[in-house]
């Protein structure tokens, strides 16, 4: 069966959303035998994207957050985090604390942010599996 393993959860973009979403992704990666420390780092990176989505991407409080993770060939994992808010460009705004996206970039192999409708951050990770 070459059907790809994937996880997609859509949920209200409240502040309490990131934790259960992190746990769902962690258990998904554990079931796919992704190597322990790599799994921890992936959860940290995706956790930053999730907390940004609920902190910055849901000002009206009635938005949703979507987590979509799937395994791709050669031990690659792609994780999208999407909200239906508007990306807040800090260039000239109030300085954000600013560590979140830096951590994502340090952990992921590639990161793209699409702010066309809502904010979609797409992260590609190496996901080596235990033997």
């Amino acid at each position, binding site marked *: 069966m070459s059907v790809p393993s994937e996880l997609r959860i859509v949920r209200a973009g409240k*502040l*309490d959303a*990131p*934790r259960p979403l*992190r746990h769902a992704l962690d258990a998904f990666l554990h079931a796919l035998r992704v190597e322990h*420390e790599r799994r*921890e*780092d992936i*959860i*940290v990176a995706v*956790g*930053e994207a999730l*907390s940004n989505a*609920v*902190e910055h991407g849901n000002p009206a409080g009635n938005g949703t957050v979507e987590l979509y993770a799937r395994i791709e060939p050669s031990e690659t994992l792609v994780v999208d985090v999407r909200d239906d808010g508007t990306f807040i460009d800090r260039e000239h705004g109030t300085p954000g*604390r600013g*560590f*979140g996206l*830096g*951590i994502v970039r*340090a*952990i992921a192999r590639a990161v793209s942010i699409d702010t066309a409708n809502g904010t979609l951050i797409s992260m590609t990770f190496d996901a080596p599996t235990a033997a």
Partner: protein
Amino acid sequence: MSGGSVQVIRLAGELDATRREEIARALTLDLGRGGVLVDLSGAEYADSTVIAELVRLRRDADHVGRSVALLTGSPRIARILAYAGLGEAFRIFEDRGTALTALTTGTV
């Protein structure tokens, strides 16, 4: 500059944005003059919320000549600090006694 008494701050469990106020309150200098040990040995998860508050604590401590050290239970926290570009910014210990000695003898 290092006095005998060390301020020990313990934070455990999943340290994420839902606990931002609690983390900020905890990571605050007391009125002592000695070193500060942030005990994260019981932390199962830590995100940029903690990183930002640690940086603020470190800046406040520098301001009054107090030193800060971290105690971790696994390499996980050290990796997160490194990813945040702060790999060199904090003395990280895996052993409580060594951390306390370093803080009280001013070798941090």
